[in-house]
């Protein structure tokens, strides 16, 4: 189990991580989700020992990690650019860590070939790195991380350089390998889809602080702030609440509202209507339209709200309008 307590990191004057605390159980994958610059990769660098924090503690299975140099931490990291060694072939890349940990070369090579086969690159061991495709490089990096039987796996945006189709397939493969490994895994990403697919729990990082953590379902059901709601993908987010899709009610009994804009989508129409005080965006599926005429800008749509379905969060300090105090 990985236990992080009060981790603080600063570069010169700038605070990168502020009192970050996390727990990841063995066999669990935690996704660290945040926009670029939130400090996600810095947290991984601290865990890997490439960066020294100013405060806090990190324990892995009871062992204090921060006092150890990177090579003794027994973890594996997958880098955003894969960081394959260009002077070594695929199998030698995979065998690198085994050799560093004292495995004889011949045996390390055999284990590396076997691991490559396990990630679906059975006969690519002799391939030079620059001849590999993006997906293949990804798999070599995965094999290199897994072959040392690490006690902790760190994944630093490993899928960000792949196109969507390839990403789906690799996500499934990696999820399968993670499940078989039974060690804590920490995935850093700015892609909520990736986080929600791969991780059992998600921690959301904003400006170096964890602003919310929980299972994907918990976070989607109760976002902690308007920023989180927007970041996890809600369209109609306002200062004090967000309107999830299930809060919209269609039907003749609802008030008629003017359609402001229409954009066709694969599964229906993205329609913007003039809501109460603000434009609302909703997706009209082809099924809901039931063969009727497509919505037109300038037309009308009958839409209402179920107030009990609205997502609300405690008002954040600083977002409170200043003049309310004077009125009270």
């Amino acid at each position: 189990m990985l236990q992080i307590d009060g981790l603080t990191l600063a570069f010169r004057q700038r605070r990168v991580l502020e009192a970050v605390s996390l727990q990841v159980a063995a066999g669990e994958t935690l996704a660290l989700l945040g926009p670029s610059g939130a400090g996600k990769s810095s947290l991984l660098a601290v865990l890997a020992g490439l960066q020294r924090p100013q405060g806090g503690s990190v324990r892995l299975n009871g062992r204090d990690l921060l006092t150890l140099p990177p090579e003794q931490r027994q973890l594996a990291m997958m880098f955003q650019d894969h960081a394959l060694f260009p002077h070594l072939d695929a199998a030698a890349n995979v065998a690198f860590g085994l050799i560093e940990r004292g495995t004889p070369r011949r045996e390390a090579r055999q284990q590396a070939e076997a691991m490559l086969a396990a990630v679906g690159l059975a006969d690519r061991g002799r391939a030079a790195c620059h001849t590999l495709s993006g997906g293949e490089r990804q798999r070599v990096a995965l094999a290199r991380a897994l072959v040392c039987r690490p006690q902790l796996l760190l994944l630093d945006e490993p899928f960000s350089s792949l196109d969507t189709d390839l990403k789906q397939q690799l996500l499934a493969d990696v999820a399968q390998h993670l499940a078989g490994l039974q060690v804590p895994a920490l995935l850093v990403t700015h892609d909520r889809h990736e986080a929600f697919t791969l991780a059992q729990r998600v921690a959301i990082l904003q400006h170096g602080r964890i602003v919310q953590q929980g299972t994907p379902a918990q976070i989607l059901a109760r976002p902690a702030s308007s920023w989180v709601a927007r970041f996890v993908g809600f369209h109609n987010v306002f200062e004090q609440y967000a309107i999830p899709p299930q809060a919209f009610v269609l039907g003749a009994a609802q008030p008629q509202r003017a359609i402001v804009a229409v954009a066709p989508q694969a599964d229906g129409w993205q329609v913007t209507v003039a809501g109460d005080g603000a434009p609302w965006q909703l997706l009209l599926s082809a099924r809901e339209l039931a063969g009727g005429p497509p919505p037109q800008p300038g037309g009308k749509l009958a839409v209402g709200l179920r107030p009990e379905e609205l997502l609300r969060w405690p008002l954040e300090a600083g977002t409170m309008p200043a003049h309310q105090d004077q009125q009270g």
Partner: protein
Amino acid sequence: MSWLLRGSLALLPLLFLAAMVAAPLTRLLWEGGSAFNPALLHDDYLQWRLLWSLLQALISCLLCQLIGLPLAWTLARYDFPGRGLLLRLLLLPFVMPTLVAGLGVLALFGPHGVAGINLQDTPWLLLYGNLFYNLPLLVRAGVDGLSQVPASRLLVARTLGATPWRTFWRVEWPVVRPWLASALCLIFLYCFAGFGLALLLGGQRYATVEVEIYSLVAYELNLADAGALALLALAVGALAAGGYALIERRLVKDSRPGPTLCQRPQGWPQWLQLAATLLLLALFAAAPLLAIVLRALQADAASWQALWDGEVLAAIGNTLQFSGAAVLLALALGLAHGIAAARWWWLRALSFLPFMVSPVMLAFGLLLLYPQYGASLWLLVAAYALLAYPFVAKAVAGALASLSPTLPAAARTLGATRWRAFWRVSLPLIRPALRRGLAFAAATAVGEFAVTLFLSRPEWTTLTTLIYQRLGRPGAANLEQALLLTCLLLAFALLAFLIIEWPEKNRAAD
């Protein structure tokens, strides 16, 4: 890498630079300053020396700029078979010993020269020698600068109504100008502080301050006047070096400027332009080397046989020994300096220091500072290493800086210690750069002439000093001998060049 480790690595080259550059120069300045006599400046003879030194450097800069810029533009914008090779060949002067250049010019335009015109005792000989060395440098800088202008930008200018000529002035010139300026600072410095060429080609009237200092020290033992002249020369050199450092730091190097415009010439005027360019380059950059080879081929068998005597073999042996020791020292210094300088720009700038100070000043300063070691082989080898190691340091620092930082980091997480990560990942990846740096260093040591002349003893005659001795003896046979020995030097420089430019096994995609 921790501050402490980097700092302790930097200590070795810093101490070396302090002992071999800073201290001797301070000593030299003090010598020149304390004995400075303003009457010296009113001496007509010395006035002319100073004036001519400045003048020949300025004229060389002007000629380089006038001839070089059109050449650079043609080479940058026209594609033709062998273009890549030609651009690489432009680096050849960097590994060419001054003696080869000087004798090449003499073989071409000297007495009984291949060209049939005797330019000895005219200023043209020295100016031509300066162009041989420095025109390729300016052309190379111009091509590099012009390659920073993407084709799209030129196309936009044309669609906005600019003629090709106006496009050059308004789009290409502003980009290439700082590149040319930095090259011109270096050219001024090399021409002003150059010693070998001026000694061989200047003759009585057109020698420079550096030659004057050498003869004051070596023949007249007049250290006071030599020191005063050195002070003036150093001040001028420092100005040029400072200008170079200022401009170099501001050079914008965009690693991916997008595709550049480089097409086959279209129509006969463009082919003519290209042909004229190649002809000019051959005239200025290749002709002296060809002249040496031609003269060597014309030599009879007896002259070749005369090479096989003890004096020549001993000189070759000395050259190889001294250079070997110097290259080993340069490897240690260069690695330490390069690794420490990968993140510290000021340390990287310091590695240019030995390039900036003229070898004559250095040797003079060393003689003043360490008179007791004047006859020590170690001082000579250390001076060789000083001139050679910046090539290694520059190559290592550059290669390490362009190395993705995640590679050593990945090695660390895979269980490699700091040292193992360097040994198994960083070192193999910088090896091509290291090889190039070492070849440059070896070429510098083998071709070294100025410092050797100052610090060497008769029994340490190297190939370069032997050539100079043979040149000084009367008679056509001695000149022929000198030319043949120069051919050996030329062959060595070409070998170094081949090692530097030999293509690496392809890993371009990374």
